[in-house]
């Protein structure tokens, strides 16, 4: 599935909830689905800059695809991490190199998260790009 299609799917899911608190309940539930990240990876080198909470992202290359894993110490942010991983993980390096999207705008996140937390999401995308360029 293309990255664009995955974004569309998540956007559709979020739009299903009219009430903001319901959206948050959904995001919290998404966070619960996140695979645990071994503590040995929760180190400063894997930290995402720009987040008010701590977010760690790691990357593994399998053939020409990149697999991202991550977590956060904050429950709601864990849900956001899950969404970002759903969109970008398991994509080819070529697809990831071509990514040039304002994910906050694409997912209408500006309506539900504050500018501080939006910069955290942008930080996650930057980290993914960094990993991609190194691959």
């Amino acid at each position: 599935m293309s990255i664009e299609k995955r974004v569309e799917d998540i956007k559709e899911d979020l739009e299903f909830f009219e009430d903001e608190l319901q959206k948050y309940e959904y995001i919290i539930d998404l966070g619960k689905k996140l695979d645990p990240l071994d503590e040995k990876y929760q180190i400063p080198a894997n930290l995402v800059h720009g987040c008010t909470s701590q977010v760690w992202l790691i990357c593994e290359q399998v053939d020409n695809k990149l697999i991202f894993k991550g977590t956060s110490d904050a429950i709601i942010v864990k849900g956001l991490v899950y969404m970002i991983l759903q969109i970008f993980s398991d994509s080819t390096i070529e697809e990831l190199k071509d990514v040039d999207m304002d994910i906050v705008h694409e997912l209408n996140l500006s309506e539900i998260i504050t500018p501080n937390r939006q910069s955290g999401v942008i930080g996650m995308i930057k980290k993914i790009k960094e990993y991609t360029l190194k691959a």
Partner: protein
Amino acid sequence: MFKKDFTYFENSDIVYLDNAATTQKPKAVVDSQIEYYEEYCANTHRSNFGDANKATLKFENARKTLKEFINAKNKEEIIFTKGVTESINFIASSYAKDFKTIIISSLEHHSNIVPWHMQGRSLGNGLEVVKYNKNLNFDMEHFEELLKENPKSFVSITHISNAFGKIHDIKQIISIAHKYDSVVMIDGAQSLAHMKVDMQELDVDFFAISGHKTFAPTGVGAIYIKEKYLKDVKAYQTGGATIDQVDFNSSTLLDSPYKFEAGTQNIAGVIGFGEALEYLNHIGYENIETIEKDVFNYLNQELKKLPNIEFYNDISDSIGSRSFNFKGLIHDDVGILVDKMKIALRVGHHCAQPIMKSLNIKGTIRVSISFYNDYSDVDKLILALKKALKMLEN
């Protein structure tokens, strides 16, 4: 009961509990801003036409009101600034920089830490920090030890901690400091919103005052400078309205307060500050203290019923701010959810990172009340917190 005096509460259904960050403005203050800009907008202390004279008179009346409000001896001791941050930076760079040692407390806001770092000071190197003990109490014994080792220091201490609401016994602090020939500045950012302060009774040397945390517009504050220091404090910045004589070789400055108020001032803000103080005079500190104590106790009592809540101090010697966390939860998660339930509070380190680090926490959830808050605000907060906790439980 007093919300009717604040237009904000007519227009908003937010439960406003972020008063330590800024207070709402009474209608009289808002009206004074409109009146200045719509009816007599002119510069002060320069031109001599009617509106300019009116603006100058109103500006100087605000100075007189503040002088009386804090019981300063004369109006020359009152210098208007942008706020407490500017007041502290002003005194730090124009007077206190020459002191060998600066003594601060563990509960300081960054505004009373970073100006000292800017002078190249660090812990043990021109900067000393008084320890806290149980219940975040100021360690008077340690303070006196520091003064014994470093007499003739400059002591710069907060009156009420913005993060924890802890009230320091500044009268005792000032008295001990003076015993060791030290000079004292008090960061009074949180003071005037909650309690009467009297410059003569305190015998304080410098007292930094916030306007916007005291129901006045943003961008205005003041520094009280005891008369005996007025000649020793250097002008922090110079320019229009500070000058007596200038030629291309030299200049001479006016006396205080004018030599310290360079450039066009925040005229509307100062006039609004005067109105805010008049409003407080009308309400009376006796009423304010009674209401706040009652609501603060109720807040504490209801918060204590919530599961896994952790406090860092009890409410003795505290006012305004109540800081807490929930075991196992990041304050940020709670803050996001209660915001969506129309509760305005602050989560984070509250510009007091050193005390947060010392307590081994990243920050807190801070509820800060004012006299216009009531039981109903507390009830709505508790409902929202309960709902947030439910949503965040595993």
